[in-house]
């Protein structure tokens, strides 16, 4: 393991910023999220995970797919320019990295590869950071994660008092370490302080939940828990793992415009509304059920992991306290005679 003195962090960030487009967790415009590093004026924020997840870097809330022009008998389609400088994501927590692996499953794995996602993801170097304390809404450990490290990072940083311990998990990570060494920023002496186990205010039992949910599609529980839901987009938009989108148009005038893709949410009525007006998920019961079924049943069945990583963002911000941890408890408790 290599060590870095905490006081030298901004030198490291300056070096990293020279290697690609560097994103760091920061307080910006009154909220914490990952922003492009802009030197000293960036208010780097390393206390817990950010309010807005880093998914917006790899999968932006709105992005243009292509531009088109029609008229005078000819149609042209212009792809958006390949604008991707290599990305470096600094300070990603285990929960958010796990969520990125979920996005990878959806966008990269299998028959259909999402080119826009792939272009970004393939260039990205991920520098993970261990958590020094669990946030009030965190429950990643219950979801089977280690808040101190995630193996799919390129470089793992451990938070030890005055030092960060650095360990590479990939060639990209090793290359970064070499570069930092060249800049004389690392040392081999440092202390690998034993990190006390994190104390979680929230714990939840997940064992057997996927199997149990398989038989609960028609369970009265959904009606019961869904009534208070506002069908807003908070939980899904803040979730680092939710990845639904909608493709629509942005017209400049009658002849030209662009195709855009925007985040969408299974909580919205328009999400499943069909062209003729029929909506197979007409109400709160169906929408709330879908959200939890997708996260805890369908996704694990398909990809072998939960689509919830325990980051706690939906718990923190749901205006009516519809908590996924509570849902998991209830699913465990209720009788399933379906």
């Amino acid at each position, binding site marked *: 393991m290599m060590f870095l003195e905490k006081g030298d962090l901004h030198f490291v960030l300056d070096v990293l910023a020279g290697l690609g487009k560097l994103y760091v967790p920061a307080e910006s*415009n*009154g909220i914490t999220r990952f922003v492009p590093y802009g030197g000293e004026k960036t208010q780097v924020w390393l206390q817990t995970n950010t309010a807005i997840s880093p998914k917006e870097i790899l999968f932006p809330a709105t992005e243009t797919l292509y531009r088109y022009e029609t008229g005078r008998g000819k149609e042209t389609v212009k792809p958006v320019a390949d604008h991707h400088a290599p990305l470096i994501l600094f300070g990603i927590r285990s929960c958010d990295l796990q969520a990125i692996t979920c996005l990878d499953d959806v966008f990269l794995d299998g028959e259909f590869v999402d080119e826009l996602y792939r272009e970004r993801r393939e260039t990205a170097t991920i520098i993970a950071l261990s958590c020094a304390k669990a946030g009030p809404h965190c429950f990643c450990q219950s979801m089977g994660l280690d808040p101190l490290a995630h193996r799919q990072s390129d470089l793992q940083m451990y938070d030890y008092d005055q030092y960060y311990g650095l360990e590479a998990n990939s060639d990209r990570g090793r290359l970064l370490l070499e570069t930092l060494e060249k800049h004389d920023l690392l040392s081999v002496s440092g202390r690998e302080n034993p990190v006390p186990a994190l104390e979680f205010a929230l714990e939840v039992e997940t064992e057997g939940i996927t199997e149990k949910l398989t038989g609960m599609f028609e369970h009265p529980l959904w009606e019961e828990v869904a009534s*208070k839901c*506002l069908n807003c987009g908070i939980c899904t938009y803040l979730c680092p793992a939710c990845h639904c989108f909608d493709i629509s148009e942005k017209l400049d005038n009658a002849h030209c415009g662009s195709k855009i893709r*925007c985040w969408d949410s299974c909580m919205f009525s*328009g999400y499943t509304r069909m062209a003729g007006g029929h909506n197979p998920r007409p109400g709160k019961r169906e929408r709330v059920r879908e959200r939890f079924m997708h996260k805890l049943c369908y996704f694990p069945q398909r990809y072998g992991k939960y689509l919830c990583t325990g980051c706690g963002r939906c718990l923190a911000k749901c*205006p009516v*306290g519809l908590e996924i941890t509570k849902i998991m408890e209830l699913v465990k408790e209720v009788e399933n005679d379906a």
Partner: protein
Amino acid sequence: MMKQLIAQMQEIARELLETGIVQTVIGWEKGSRWYLSPPVFVRKPEDAGRLWYDQFAVPNLSGYLLDYRNKNEKVAVFVKGCDSRSVVRLIQDNQVRKENIVAIGVPCAGMRDQSAVNDEKEPHELPLLSKCLQCRYPNPVYADRTVGEAVVDKSLNVPDDLDAGTGLMGGDLTGDGSYVSSGIVERLEGLSSDDRYDFWQKAFSKCLRCYACRNVCPACSCRECIMDSEHSLWVGKGSSPTENMFNALIRAYHVAGRCTTCGECERVCPVGIPLMALNQFLGQEVNKLLEAYDAGIDETLKPPLEMYGWPDFDGLFRCAKGVRA
């Protein structure tokens, strides 16, 4: 005292459900943390014991009545003073039928601000919410039943436990524009219009377009919101400065003079946009241009922007101050 009050709330709920007067009771329950009392829907008399009330019962439950507007179901809803104004709003807007709802008024000495929590496990003192510091209707202005010391009272008032010096209250109707979201409107009014424009552009640049502000609002009652209608071409789905601002302005104008200042939009906004400042500002404008008006107090008194009087100051909405009578 609180225990007694809760027992009374549970008793009423049980009775209403047992006798079949209502099929659902909407109240609050004890949440997963000491400072959370989220909404609960009780449908069986034996579940009435879940009902709970304390200084964290912040959510305004009246908006849920919109879920019942097309149903022939009777529901009871617990209301604090401020929440009861939303019920009046809904009745006035013909969104609910009086005979289908039982509003149960609860006493309120102000709700506490959970953003000041610093210990998740051990309960500690929290300051009042800023909206509660300016409470003018601590008693329900409309209720079919009341519990505890709550009485139906349409007059301006100060909550018992509140130091009268902190609030804005007094005998005179000042209109909803006097709701102050932490002095921000005054601050904004002091800026040049360019700076003010920048302030709002910046604020709404972080809008996620999650529509929580709309969905929680008891004054937002359109059957289909223009923001959701795919074919309107008024606004696209993408988030961009123009589209976010369009959303913001539509929402603000649509509740102008109708907003009952429950503050829910601002409370639920996940990115902390000071939405109440817009509502307050528009309330002030209504007060200035038309008349001092508190929305949702008296169902027979129409919102000034919904009336036409002669002679109106601009020839269109003719109900200028002083001319209306």
